């Protein structure tokens, strides 16, 4: 095998790229995993308010060592903090916020996304373990914009952007933008539109790693995050 002529993005670089699209004043829910990292990469001076499904509006960064608060956890049950101006709501109101279209953006992880924006991110149907859905379906249905961060392919190089999802759906036709370790892709009524490509990646190579037909957007750009994105100070 010839060495790759491109270097896929790291988790931090993918999170950095997704964070650049969050606007001043956005209310945003971050899913467990890579999406959580995005909070650290919001450009300095831009105020974005993070929501956590367990009733935190105004969630802050990870606490400094020794300053963990047992009453403050995020959706993944990791210790977190509250920013100035933050507050608490109970669960029914937290999901009213999610389901009722009050969040500007939900940034989620995914197993698979289809060319029409179907999302599969809650179960692989492993018979050895009970399934868990948490707030995934509420988020996929309720937020104004659903964006996904995921590796472009699976462990064995198989496409994860598919004509039709093979895993059970979280919600149909909900994903608007996909950030992968190779590209940024928009889901449009005309199909999948590639808006950014990492250096060394070509439309042909990307197509070979993607099941449905890709279109290159007019005015597409290079996807070139900093080599080691700098996390915002708490």
């Amino acid at each position, binding site marked *: 095998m010839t060495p790759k002529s491109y270097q896929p993005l790291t988790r931090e670089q993918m999170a950095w790229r997704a964070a650049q699209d969050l606007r001043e004043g956005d209310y945003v829910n971050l899913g467990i995993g890579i999406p959580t990292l995005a909070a650290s990469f919001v450009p300095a001076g831009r105020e974005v308010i993070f929501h956590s*499904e367990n009733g935190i509006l105004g969630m802050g960064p990870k606490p400094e060592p020794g300053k963990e608060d047992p009453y403050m956890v995020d959706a993944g*049950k990791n210790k977190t903090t509250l920013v100035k101006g933050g507050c*608490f709501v109970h669960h029914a109101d937290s999901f009213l916020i999610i389901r009722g279209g009050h969040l500007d953006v939900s940034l989620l992880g995914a197993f698979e996304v289809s060319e029409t924006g179907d999302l599969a991110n809650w179960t692989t149907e492993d018979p050895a373990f009970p399934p868990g859905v948490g707030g995934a379906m509420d988020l996929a249905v309720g937020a104004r914009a659903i964006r996904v961060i995921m590796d472009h392919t699976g462990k064995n190089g198989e496409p994860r952007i598919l004509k039709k999802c093979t895993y059970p759906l979280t919600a149909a036709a909900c994903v608007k933008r996909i950030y992968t370790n190779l590209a940024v892709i928009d889901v449009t009524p005309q199909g999948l539109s590639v808006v950014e490509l990492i250096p060394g990646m070509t439309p042909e190579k990307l197509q070979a790693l993607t099941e449905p037909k890709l279109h290159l957007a007019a005015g597409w750009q290079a996807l070139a995050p900093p080599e080691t994105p700098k996390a915002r100070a708490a």
Partner: protein
Amino acid sequence: MIDKQVKTTADAVAGVRDGSTVLVAGFGAVGVADNLLDALHEQGARELTIVANNSGNGDYGLARLINSGRVRKVICSFPRSGDYSAFLNAYRARSLELELLPQGTISERMRCHAAGLGGFFSPVSAGTKLGEGKETREIDGRLHVFEKPLKGDVALIKANKADRWGNLTYIKSARNFNPVMAMAADLTVVEVDQMVELGELDPEAVVTPSIFVDRVVVVGAHA
């Protein structure tokens, strides 16, 4: 004089019957009434249906009830959280039933019962495996599923402070499911870190008003 405070956790869970639906508040290990769950274990009620977000941790509280075979069914959104080995063993042995629901559907079904409503249509889970078998309706061009109200026979609540009427406050994200579950059960039992004098809680800061609370017991501080 109204006084909802009882002396012991055993007094707090007295009378819970076999076959009860028990609302267990908390998110992960935060805001869970573990002392009441342990008291319920001592009390001995069986064939319980548990409504919770997760499925218990380690070998205390909810996990202890599951390990002792007291739980017939768990209604939750995310059983795979923390050390959930008690649930996993029972699930694999098929000794309990799992009803998986989206997290917001659980909380809204309880709110719906508390509000005296007969159910609601939700777009969440419509067209997915979790929506299968549910009545559907298209509303403004969008598919919805019908969700029925969810009622508890008893709710086990963890709060920070209470007064003798049963007004409650919480700490930070330990609030989570507690206020909605407190509203949705026939018998609402609360463990608190401390009792305060009537009038001491700021009326603007009371989260759960006393009308929803039946019994309060002091257990001291824990997350």
